[in-house]
């Protein structure tokens, strides 16, 4: 494997950092959303479902633009967060993480929701009759049983985040060290004549990371599922 230049390392390290935080912080939200969609019965459930899947269907650039309008320096949420908590997304890796998280969210929710639906709701009823309230039932019964799905969903989201480009570049542009993730770097190199070797090297790395993540996701999910089944 040929060695990487400092610029290439920077892009790779930034991608890993952005994807990690995007996945880690959206996991609780994704879990809650999947739970609500799987077990909830309320008006507007299909609207929620639609919203969750929107990033999957909208062109990434549109999603990026919407993020820019909402979380940018002058956007309603962005300005509020900056003024009250000092959280800034504009042109920062936090913005890249937000874009990656939003784009990966539907995949995460889908995977977790499927695994929740696979848990026999009657087991949850049984836990209820034994005195466990909804929270305890979730923690002791549901969560361990959906763990394979949660892990698979997280890894899938991580892989998607690693590959996120359109929304990121529209929202926070491409700033080396801050928002120039692996895909943005690859794109940049292809735009410059003579940038092919770098682009190719980074592409191979991106493919390797994605394949590793997907294989690991499968492996972990199967291991955990087997352990639960056999006790």
């Amino acid at each position, binding site marked *: 494997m040929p060695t990487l230049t400092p610029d290439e390392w920077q892009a790779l390290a930034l991608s890993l950092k952005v994807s990690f935080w995007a996945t880690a912080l959206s996991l609780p939200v994704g879990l809650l959303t999947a739970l609500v969609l799987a077990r909830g019965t309320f008006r507007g459930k299909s609207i929620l479902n639609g919203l969750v899947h929107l990033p999957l269907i909208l062109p990434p650039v549109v999603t990026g633009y919407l993020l820019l309008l909402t979380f940018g320096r002058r956007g309603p949420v962005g300005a509020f967060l900056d003024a009250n908590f000092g959280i800034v997304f504009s042109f920062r890796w936090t913005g890249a993480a937000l874009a990656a998280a939003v784009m990966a969210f539907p995949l995460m929710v889908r995977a977790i929701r499927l695994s929740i639906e696979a848990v026999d709701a*009657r*087991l949850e*009823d*049984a*836990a*209820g*009759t034994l*005195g*466990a309230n909804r929270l305890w039932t979730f923690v*002791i019964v549901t969560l361990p049983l959906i763990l394979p799905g949660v892990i698979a969903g997280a890894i899938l989201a991580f892989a998607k985040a690693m590959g996120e480009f359109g929304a990121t570049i529209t929202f926070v542009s491409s700033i080396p060290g801050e928002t120039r993730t692996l895909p943005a770097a690859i794109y940049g190199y292809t735009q410059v004549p003579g940038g092919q070797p770098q682009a190719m090297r980074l592409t191979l790395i991106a493919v390797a990371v994605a394949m590793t993540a997907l294989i690991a996701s499968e492996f972990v999910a199967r291991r955990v599922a087997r352990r639960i089944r056999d006790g």
Partner: protein
Amino acid sequence: MSLDVRLRHAFGSFILDVDFTAPAGVTALFGRSGAGKTTVVNAVAGLLRPAEGRIVVDGATLLDTARGVDVPKHRRRIGYVFQEGRLFPHLSVRQNLAFGGWFAPRTAPQPDFGQVVALLGIAGLLDRSPGLLSGGEKQRVAIGRALLSAPRMLLMDEPLAALDEERKAEILPYLERLRDETRVPILYVSHAVAEVARLATTVVALKDGRVARIGAAADVLSDAGAAPLFGPTEAGAVIGARVLRHDPDGLSELAAGGGRLLLPWVAAAPGTTLRVRIHARDVIVALRQPEAISALNVLPAVVAQIGGGEGPAVDLSLICGPDRVLARITRRSLIALDLAPGRPCFAILKSVALEGRESGETTAAFRAEDR
């Protein structure tokens, strides 16, 4: 302790409308599939909210739609044993059992883990995973788990339905012990008359969403009017009988209220009171004491009640001493023998089935005062 259930709920065109009060002991909720039994039990457990209803267990109001009371299921303290067991697959047997204990309120009397395990004979299974247990073992663990949640009442929804005959026979004694040795009242759903006959103190018979008959087990099972609910093959009275002695030729002699009974050797010590079941189809009615017949069990009786219906067969309820026995004969014979309430006769019992043990207490409740 009592169970007070009144509810009304509609499923499409099927309307469930029940109203009954049951005393302590095992209350069997009997009926055909679709009669509404599981709905009633789910409503008591809090898994289903009926359109209208009022459920009071041991003085505690769990549901009262009129006053907006609906205690959530995790606070009702009703132990539920499901048909499929529903053990948590990712926890060991020990952890499944302990689960109930984790959420039992501190103020409730804590059942003793060792005692429950001994009662159900599951000591050897504690470290196994639920996936590796047989059906009967799973059910026993499920019962133990429900007991350990210190419930004020146990619900059992056809707990033996998914088991084969051998497993059923294996568990029934444990259920009898449950009935006799714990103070916990049980609402037992079943469509199997044999189970009801063996275990029930009180029977609530449901038909088409309504309570068709309610009363002490002995009364309901020997009621000629209620016999159609149980079907021609299964209808039959249960009576208590005390073992007197075991004869060397392989027969045991028992004393029932209305006479002596001889059964093939019974594995119980003299003095033990047992529950015997007499299928209606196994009873022949004679006007005179028969001579020179092979049947050994002949009890003098008086016709008490003739069942309704128009078919070729008819059910009779006969009084034999303090007990009642159900007989199923042809209408032709009914007319030919001119049987009517008050007519003395003889009940010839072709076969007597042994159903199980009777504890002193249950026998007392079982033989209701109002005869």
